[in-house]
């Protein structure tokens, strides 16, 4: 079992409120990713779960038991640290055995568990070495091994891949996922990398300024961002935002701005009801537009960025910048004026004041 409940979790460091009234349920066996830019409170939340950070108010429950004043060692939670936090003066074996030794587990049991974890991670041959003599990837595995041997109810990962190079990062990502499937333990994973979050998380919790912006599966978050922030944060290159005015013309709702005029199908326009004549933020992802002569958006090509599989074009639309993804076969030249047609099902609009998603 390993169901984690965060209730009104708040943390303030004096003046700064790092985490504000966070409520979240993490189900048993789930892999939840806390995602957000640095300083959003995700790591603080994780550390509160671990018991390393004091809770200002609110509660954390694990399987119904309040953890607030439970010592980290008694929480049955293991953590993989960003810098791995391997004890430099202990061999790999001792590093992995340390937590069990502290819990007075019998020696042969420790041996069995360390060896088994080492087997899973393929680090049997490293057991006698010291952390200083290991490569980054090896250290990463030892850190994972140290968490595994404890057989905890919850695994916490604090940006565990940020110290690895790009290739190793992808590889380890897969391994962690496999490991998760194998162990089926609840995992909370903190990262600022949306690719990691999208590929790994059963659910993603997007945080910003200490509050949860949205909780959902990767696709939910991608397709139906709860607000302007989530929409902008998820996706790469990020969603284009253009100021627009809502117009109602002949039963159709039209978003109009400098250089574009997008008309919405009736079933998508519900969220804009009563806003006719008002300002909104029109949002569209680069991949949700097609080039075409009858397109509703018009702009001049400023920068052409071929990345191999695609080409990204930076356009100037009514003085605003807009990025679009086009097929690699498309041939355009700088300064050329082109027209784009957005997929009406993928058009978003946000309240310019609150950032709330309107459609």
């Amino acid at each position, binding site marked *: 079992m390993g169901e984690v409940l965060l209730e009104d979790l708040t943390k303030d460091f004096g003046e700064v409120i790092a985490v504000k009234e966070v409520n979240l349920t993490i189900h048993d066996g789930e892999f939840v990713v806390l995602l957000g830019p640095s300083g959003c409170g995700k790591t603080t939340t994780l550390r509160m779960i671990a018991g390393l950070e004091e809770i200002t108010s609110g509660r954390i429950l694990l399987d119904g038991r309040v953890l607030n004043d439970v010592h*980290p060692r008694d929480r049955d939670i293991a953590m993989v640290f960003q810098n791995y936090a391997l*004890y*430099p003066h202990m061999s790999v074996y001792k590093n992995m055995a340390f937590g069990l030794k502290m819990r007075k587990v019998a020696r042969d049991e420790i041996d069995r568990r360390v060896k088994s974890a080492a087997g899973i991670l393929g680090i049997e041959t490293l057991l006698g070495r010291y952390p200083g003599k290991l490569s980054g990837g090896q250290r990463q595995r030892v850190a994972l091994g140290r968490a595994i041997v404890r057989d905890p109810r919850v695994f916490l990962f604090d940006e565990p891949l940020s110290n690895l190079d790009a290739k190793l990062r992808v590889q380890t990502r897969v391994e962690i996922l496999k490991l998760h499937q194998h162990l089926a333990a609840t995992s909370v994973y903190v990262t600022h990398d949306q690719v990691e979050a999208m590929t790994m998380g059963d659910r993603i919790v997007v945080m910003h300024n200490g509050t949860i912006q949205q909780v959902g599966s990767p696709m939910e978050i991608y397709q139906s961002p709860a607000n302007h922030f989530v929409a902008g944060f998820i996706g790469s290159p990020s969603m284009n935002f253009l100021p627009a005015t809502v117009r109602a013309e002949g039963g159709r709702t039209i978003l109009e701005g400098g250089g574009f005029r997008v008309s919405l199908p009736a079933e998508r326009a519900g969220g804009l009801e009563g806003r006719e004549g008002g300002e909104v933020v029109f949002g569209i992802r680069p991949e949700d537009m097609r080039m075409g002569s009858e397109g509703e958006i018009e702009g001049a090509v400023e920068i052409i960025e071929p990345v191999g599989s695609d080409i990204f074009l930076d356009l100037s639309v009514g003085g605003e910048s807009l990025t679009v993804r086009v097929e690699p076969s498309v041939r355009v030249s700088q300064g050329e004026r082109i027209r784009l047609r957005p997929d009406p099902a993928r058009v978003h609009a946000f309240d310019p004041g609150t950032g709330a998603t309107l459609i």
Partner: protein
Amino acid sequence: MRRKTMLRLGGALITLFALFGVWVMLLPYFWMVSSSIKTGIEVFDLPIKWIPDDIQWVNYPNALAKGAFGVYFYNSFVVAFAVMGGNLVFCTLAGYGLAKFRFPHRELCFRLILSTLMLPLEIVLVPTFLVVRDLGLVNTYGGLIAPLAVDAFGVFLMRQSIRDIPDSLIEAARMDGCSEFGIFWRIILPNCKPALGALALLAFRDNWDQFLWPFIVATTDNLKTFPLGLAQMEGIDSAAYHEIMALAVMGMIPAAFIFLFFQRAFVRGITLTGLKE
């Protein structure tokens, strides 16, 4: 090409200069050792003879026989090691507390501790003596050791050193089920060994050396330390330079010995104490 020869020449000059400096630094030692194996009359003979014709090893046993030097050496060892131990334990504990915990008035605590660096013993000799007397410690090992057992410099050194140990090690240990003291013992101590070495060496040297305080506190012969024994040689036989030097040589051996073995660790220890920030 010319530049290169110039550089090489410069390097050679610097090496020569360094060697000359070595002699300046070591001359007193040579003189000390040389004097310790001469007869009393030869010590100031001119021109100076570094190795006397007739080496007087007998000066050593003779000098030792002029006081209870076995006892003095023993006491110096007891005091030096006990104070060193006290420093290692208390300074490291305090350094850890100051480096890694947040508690109210932590900075004030640190400042207060540092401010004691400005209090030479001579300034507070009498009040300190009164305290020791009130604790019933006059003429005890406790009295010799207790007032010296914590040194602000040691606290500073250890704090700087421990600050460089990543917080995550401590947190990992906390999650691994270590008690707070266990963290100190199993994680912090092994990871600040070089600084501990440097602290131990300095503490040993400074306290092998204590003169004024033992002089005031030790009231019987069996509690005198080596420097007191050495100093009283002047009272016994003020012209026995050769024997005084023999004692000086012997008194230097323990500290020199420890230094020879730990100088590398010492340099490393200082290097790693976060002065680099």
